[in-house]
Each structure stands twice: as C-alpha cells, then as structure tokens.
C-alpha cells in the first residue's frame, strides 16, 4: 500500500495542561516511545511534564520533539491529545479551541452532555473530536478507559488524604503502650474509585464497610475483605443502568439509605463518598447533621466534590473543618499522584490510538463501537450522542478481577456420609416386613397386623423427629420419655385383670407406679423446660 505523506506520518501533539492545579500530562516518555513505535511523530510542549516530574529531556530522549511555542505545537499537530477539555488559557487569555488547527483531531475529556458551548466552538474548527469520557464500558475498551484509571487513583488517594488528616493509626495494634482500635472506614459507592479506596484502606489495616445501590457490587466489596452494608428494602430495584453506572433511585430507597448512613456516621472514623450519577449533580448523601454526629477527628473525603459533592459541608477543592470533622473536597486527587496518573492516562491513549491504527494508518472507523460511541465531532459535524444500540451491551465488568478467597482448608473426611438418607432404611424395613409376612402362616394374622402398625409407626417417628430442632433435643427426650410411660397401659391391664393371679397383679401395679412417675415427671419437666425458651 502506497502511503501518502499525510496518512503515513501523523503528528501527535501534547500541550501543557492549562487548568490551574492540573499537574497531569497526556503522555509520559514511556508512552511517547510507544506512540512513535506505532508510527506517529510526537511533539510535546516544553514543560508539559513538569507537574508530573517528567523532564523535557526525557521526552526528547524518547523521540519527541520538544516545542517551545504553544501555538506552534497546536498548529503543527494532526492529533492533539490532552487530559482536560479545552478551556481558556489563563496565561494569555486564548481559548484552546482557537489553537486547534482547522480540521485537526482532538482526543481528551469533553463531557459533551454538560459542555454544549465547547462542542460548538470545536465544531467551528471543523475538527474531529473523540471524548475519552464517552468511551463505552465494554470489556474490550477497558484498556482505554481513562475514567476507570483515574477513579482507581482517586480512590487510593482519597484514603491517603484521609489518613493524612486522621489522628490515629488505620490498623489496630497491641503495643507496649496500649491497644489501638482499627479505624472504621465506610465507603459509599463501590465503583472503581470506591473499590480502590476499600483496597487501600484494607491495606492500611482499617475495618471497612461499603455501600452501593447496585447489589452486584456486594461480591466485589466482599472479595476485598470489606463488609457490604445492605438495606432492609424490597430489592426489586437493581440500581444499575446499562452502562454499569448507578441510576436514580426511588424516594423510599433513598430514605432507607439515608437512615443507614446516619447510623453508620456515628460509628465510623472515615467516610469516603464516590456517588456520582452521570450527567447530574451528585446526590447529597452525608448531610451536615450526619457529619455533626461523627466523632471529632473523623474525616470525610468527598470524591464527588466537582459535581456538587455528596456531603453537606463539602467545598470544592478545600479541606474544611466542621466541629472537629475534616471534610475534604479536593477535585485534584489524581493530580496529587501526577506521575502515576499521567502514566496510566497516557497508556490508555496509546491503547486507543493503537486500536484506531490499521497497517500504520490511523483513521476513524465507524464500524468500531468504541470510536463510534466516543466520537463527538467528525470534521465539524456533531455525531454525539450516537445512535442507540439495538441490543443492550453485554454486562460490563467494571471491577478489577479480585481473586476469590481461597477455598477453606480441606476438612477431614467424616466417617459417615452427611445427611439422613432414610430411603435405604425404608426399603430395608419394607423388604424385611414383606419377607416376614410371606414366611408366616395365616394363624399369625394378628402378629402381621401388629408388625404393620409397628413399621409404620417407626417410619412416622423417623420422619417427624428429623424435623426437631437441635436446641429442643433435651425436651424431645423428656417428652418421648413421658410418652414411653404408655407402658402403664400394660401395667393397668395386668393389675386390673382379676384372672391374672395375685403376684401378676402386684407386678402390674408396680409397673403402673414406676410408669406414672415417668409420665408425670416427663411431661412436667418438659413443660418447665419449654416455658424457659423465649425469643
């Protein structure tokens, strides 16, 4: 295939992030190397990696051209990759969209649902735009899912921030200087960030409980060693949308949920909230009252601060103190781990571009679900939202594949097989009875009848007694004891039989005596015992 110069060599440009406090960068020297290997040329703005402690020299060594002038970088690049959506550069007041070459490509976060004007400005540049936040949550796209990568880091960092503000150990310790209790951590929302927070808190030794409206999260939470908090609620609401995110729940559900949080708030030391509903203001889950009820020194980390916050006291980008409780609303948690974030972000981008490149040509392929769904603009034409799929996408697996707990140690084999298997016994009894019946002559018909009654009664007893709960085995014994006093009937028949002879009558009477002890004693003591069992 003859490649045109343009097709063959596309230049990827990486500008410095202009958002105040943003320290991430869309590529690291490592990912630059991979891009070059894919056949791209790479330009990077000088100082782009500074926030992530990545030097220009390292980029140059990896093969990137370090460009001093930001406008030249944008103008010369075919594809601009960056972290945050374009915005006004505070340094010179230019809109980054203006810098984008006409007809150029942009790959970054966009949030098209809430950023309508931005999409219009980009459309005016006749650009082709892929929104990283719109990459579908399908298994194949996980390697490009920057939201997951970033959430993972944010969840981890949330615990680190909490630990920083928390005045005690996370792990319980028994030391020479006394005993400390493990910190109690509650995580709300067991998405990627929530699970990462659980893992980090567990790693530090805390006791962790977690809540999520999606019951499917239970297994994932428990696999990380945390307790899953469940609502006493008719669970006909599966809180999951086709995209694997939480949806809005009914009022009753929310009331039950809030009661749970209020109860937990009094007990726990640290709360991490990660509840976000895509395209909406974050739900208020931890009210001011709940924070006030927390122990002094407790910490709340609100990962939803950017979208309004899950906590009543949350202030965006601030750590505020309310009655001794620190409420952290940082939105730059990923920037606080800029080197790692940049590496993961950059790798996601390499994976995306790698998928888009066939035989060395990077192109838009609308057959590709990932591209189709994440593309916002194509040559200035708005292509978002994409046409809905005819069928619901396969259930996404958003959780890391946490190893299942190892199966419990093998138990010694029991002597007998478990479970009462009454069938063989029944068959034996039936066969035995049949054999006896056949072997007896007609004069024994009374005995045969007795035997029938006996076998049936054994069978009924067998059936009935298996249902007796173990706690009642002693009363069972005393009551069977009492009813086996029925032998008194035999004694009565003998004692009251004038033809039996005196000695036989006396023996019968003694039998009555002992059997009545049994009857009275057995029933009364059973009554006494049963009266004690109470709930």
């Amino acid at each position, binding site marked *: 295939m003859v490649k045109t110069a343009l097709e063959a060599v596309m230049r990827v440009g990486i500008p410095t992030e202009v958002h105040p406090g943003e320290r991430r960068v869309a590529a690291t020297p490592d990912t630059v190397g991979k891009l070059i290997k894919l056949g791209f040329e790479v330009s990077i703005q000088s100082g782009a990696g500074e926030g992530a402690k990545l030097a220009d020299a390292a980029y140059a060594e990896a093969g990137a051209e370090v460009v001093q002038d930001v406008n030249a970088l944008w103008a010369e690049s075919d594809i601009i990759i960056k972290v945050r959506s374009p915005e006004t550069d505070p340094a010179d007041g230019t809109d980054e969209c203006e810098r984008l070459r006409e007809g150029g490509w942009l790959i970054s976060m966009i949030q098209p649902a809430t950023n309508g004007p931005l999409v219009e400005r980009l459309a005016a540049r006749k650009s082709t735009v892929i929104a990283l936040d719109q990459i579908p949550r399908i298994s194949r796209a996980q390697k490009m899912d920057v939201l997951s990568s970033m959430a993972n880091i944010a969840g981890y960092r949330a615990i680190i921030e909490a630990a920083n503000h928390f005045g005690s150990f996370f792990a319980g310790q028994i030391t020479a200087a006394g005993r400390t*209790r493990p910190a109690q951590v509650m995580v709300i929302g067991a998405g990627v960030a929530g699970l990462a927070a659980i893992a980090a808190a567990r790693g530090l030794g805390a006791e962790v409980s977690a809540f999520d409206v999606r019951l499917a999260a239970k297994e994932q939470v428990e696999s990380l060693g945390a307790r899953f908090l469940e609502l006493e609620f008719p669970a006909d609401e599966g809180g999951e949308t086709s995209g694997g995110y939480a949806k809005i729940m009914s009022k009753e559900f929310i009331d039950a949920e809030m009661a749970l949080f209020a109860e937990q708030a009094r007990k726990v030391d640290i709360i991490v909230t990660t509840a976000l509903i895509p395209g909406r203001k974050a739900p208020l889950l931890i009210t001011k009252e709940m924070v006030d009820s927390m122990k002094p020194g407790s910490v709340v980390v609100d990962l939803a601060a950017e979208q309004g916050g899950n906590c009543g006291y949350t202030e965006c980008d601030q750590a505020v103190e309310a009655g001794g409780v620190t409420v952290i609303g940082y939105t730059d948690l990923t920037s606080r781990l800029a080197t790692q974030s940049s590496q993961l972000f950059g790798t996601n981008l390499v994976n995306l571009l790698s998928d888009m490149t066939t035989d060395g040509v990077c192109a838009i392929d609308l057959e590709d679900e990932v591209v189709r769904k994440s593309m916002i603009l194509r040559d200035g034409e708005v292509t978002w939202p994409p046409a809905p799929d005819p069928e619901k996408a396969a259930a996404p697996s958003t959780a890391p594949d946490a190893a299942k707990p190892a199966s419990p*140690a093998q138990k010694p*084999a*029991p*002597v*007998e097989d478990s479970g009462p298997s009454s069938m063989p016994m029944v068959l034996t009894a039936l066969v035995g009875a049949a054999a006896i019946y056949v072997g007896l002559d007609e004069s024994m018909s*009374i*005995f045969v009848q*007795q035997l029938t009654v*006996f076998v049936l*009664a054994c069978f*009924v*007893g*067998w059936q009935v*007694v298996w249902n*007796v*709960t*173990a*706690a*009642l*085995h002693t*009363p*069972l*014994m*005393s*009551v069977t*004891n009492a009813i*086996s*006093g*029925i*032998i*008194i*009937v*035999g*004694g*009565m*028949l003998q*004692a*009251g039989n004038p033809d*039996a*002879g005196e000695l*036989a009558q006396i*023996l*019968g*009477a*003694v039998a*009555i005596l002992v*059997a009545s*002890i*049994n*009857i*009275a*004693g057995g029933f009364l*003591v*059973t*009554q*006494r*015992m*049963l009266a004690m*069992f109470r709930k």
Partner: protein
Amino acid sequence: MIALTANQLAVPYLIAGVLFIMSLSGLSTQETARRGNVFGIIGMAIAMGATFLASGLEINALLMGAVVLGGAVGAALAARVVMTGMPQLVAILHSFVGLAAVLVGISTYMSHPDSGAVHAIEVWLGVAIGAITFTGSVVAWAKLRGSLSGTPLLLPGRHLLNLVMLVATVGLLVPFLDASLSEGLTLLYIMTAITCVMGIHLVLAIGGADMPVVVSLLNSYSGWAAAASGFMLNNNALIITGALVGSSGAILSFIMCKAMNRSIWNVVFGGFGTDSGGASAPAAAGDQGEVTEIDSDSCAEELLAAKRVIIVPGYGMAVARAQHMVNDLTRILRDRGVEVRYAIHPVAGRLPGHMNVLLAEAGVPYDVVLEMDEINDDFPKTDVVLVIGANDIVNPGAQTDTSSPIYGMPVLEAWKSSMVVIFKRGMGAGYAGVANPLFFHDNSRMLFGNAGDTVAQLVSNLRER
C-alpha cells in the same frame, strides 16, 4: 358405666397415637413446642382413660393407688430438678420405663404362660430390652450424678463377656418356648438377671464424654421395650408409641455420633479415651509452648472493645452452674452495643441439647443461640470468643492432627477469631483426654478458675466500667 370392648378400645388408642405424633412434630420449632407437649399430655390422658374403661378391668385400690403415688413422685421430681441435673433425671426416667417393661413382661407371662411361640418370644424380647434399659439407665444416672466415676470401666475380655451374655440370652429362649409355667418363670428370671448385668456392664464401659449418645440410646431402648410389650399384649397404643420413641432415640444417637465423627459401635464398644487417647494425651501437653494468662480486668477491656463476641459453652459451664452469670455478661455486653452470640456444639454437655436448655433457663434469647453449622463460618469475623467450660469441641487438632483420637470430629473453629479467652479450672485435658493445641495459640488467653467465679468476676468488672 360404659365398658369398652377390645375393638372400641382401639379407637382411643389410635387417637392417642396420632396425638403423640403431633406432639413430636410440635417440637420441631420453639414456637410450637409447648403445644406439642400439651398434645402428648392429652394423648396420654386419653390412652389411660380408655384403659380404665376397658371391659373386664377391675379397678381396685392397688391400681388407683399406684397411679396416684407414681404421679405424685414424678411431679415432685420434675418440680425439684435443677436444669443442670436434667441429664440425671432423664436417665433415671428411662430406667423406670425399662423396669415397667420387665414387670409387665413377667406379669403377662404369669397370667398367660402358654399362648404360643410368638407370644413367648415377644415376652422374652420385651423383658430383655427392658432389663438392659433399666440397669443401663441406672448406671448412666449414677455416672451423670457423679456417684460413679465417669471413666470407663474396661474389664479384660469385655467383648467376650458381652458375647457370652448375648448368646446365653438367646440360647435360654429355646427351652423357654416349651417350658411349663414354673420352669419358664425360672428361665425368665435367669435371663432377666443376665440382661441386667449386661446393661450395667455395657454402660460402665462408656466414658463420661459419650453420655449424650448413651442417654439417647437408652431413650431408644425404652421405646423398643414399650413396643415389645405392645406386641406381647396385642396393644397398638404401646406399639405405636414405642416405635415413635424408639426411632426418636435412634435418630438422636445418630446425630450425636455424627457430631463426634464416630460410629455407634465405636461409642458403645470402643471404650474411647483410654486405649488410644490416654497414653498420648496429657503427656503431650507439656511440649507445646506456653499458655498466656489473662486477668478478668483485661478480659473485660477486650470485651468492651470488641464488636462481635461468640460464647462457646461446654459442660464446665453446667457444672459450675454459671449460665445465669453468663447471661448477665451477655446482657451487659449487648447493652454496650457488642454483638453477642452463642455457638453450640451438638455434643456440648451430657445430653443432646443440654446447653440450649441451660441457656434458656438463664433467659438467653434462643435466636442468638446458634448451632455449629450456622455459626462456624463467622469465627474469622469475630473479635473475641469466650470458651466457657468447653475443651474438645474447640480443639483444632480435630482438623489437623491425624494421630488425635478426635481427628475428624467437627469442631467449632474458635481459633479463627482475633482472640480466644478460655475459662478453665486448670490445664487438665477434656473428657476425651486429648491435649488441646488451642490453649497454646498466640491469640489464646487462659482465664483460670471455676467458671462460676471467673464469670462472676468478669461481670462485676464490666459493671464497674
């Protein structure tokens, strides 16, 4: 006055039989258990009332006096027994059924000496089972009371002895079938004596820890004795009831054996805890490391710091009558927000369900008292386990030490919790005579002393806080 003929008598007996079945099925849950007992009483009243009305029955002072006197004695026994003495009471009541069966059998033979071979065999069987039940239960009663030592008495050649007695019992039946009344009676007395000795010998050879099985086995025997008398007297009420009781006791024995991972033959003839356990066990205790003691004060501290506590009671709690104190402990902890539950091993105590009865007596709500299978998975999530007077049922060696005599017995996995506090009088081994590695675990703490005193001390420590 109406007199019921034999056929008419069958109706109330049938009703009584059905009531007894309903009585047993009522015991399947705590909610219906009391109703079950009432059904049993009604059934018994109907059976006795109908028998009084049987045609040809002469109601004399002897008969009435015996019923009244026996009833009064029984009522007095039942009213006075303490719950920790329940195993003894149950055992002695079994012996009464056995004795009654023997007496009825002999009496029946006296009045109908030659009613054919089948009848003779029925008499023989009823008397034999009755005699074993009678003396066996008396020995079990004495052992449970402590009048006899709990250690098994193992005569040399005891299996042979049993076999000889069994052969003699069966062998004497042959002349008995054709004997005249006086000869027959002599044979019957000899056989009764042999089976009485057999009952004594069998139960003497069984160790104290196996008493739950023995008591339920004797329960079963008492039922079979009643059923045999029913055949003998051609009385369906006796047959049905005997069969019910017999199968009930058999099931209980089976459950107990399964809980110890042993077969019924092993329990009855094994002489457990001596040939295999005695030699290796207490001696092995010395070289396992050191135990860590804890005092009542620190234990109270641990309990208040805990979130989930499981109490494992054993026979030691029954002996020390500590169940009320344990309940106080539970209440204090629950008031402080600590979750307290009980784990009951099927063979804890000396009677099936013994611990449940004691805890119920003390007022512990039954829904926090859980069976082994229900609670065993929860130990890893538990902060503190209190083992009160239990030993073998929390022995980790049962799962790991193939040379242990209790290897394979399902046990409560107390050692998987964060901390185990063991209330114990001293370092003695349990009834099985097996060393318990649990005591030497890092997370185990020993609280030495009589369980009654140590728990009381703990309760007062907790109250002060």
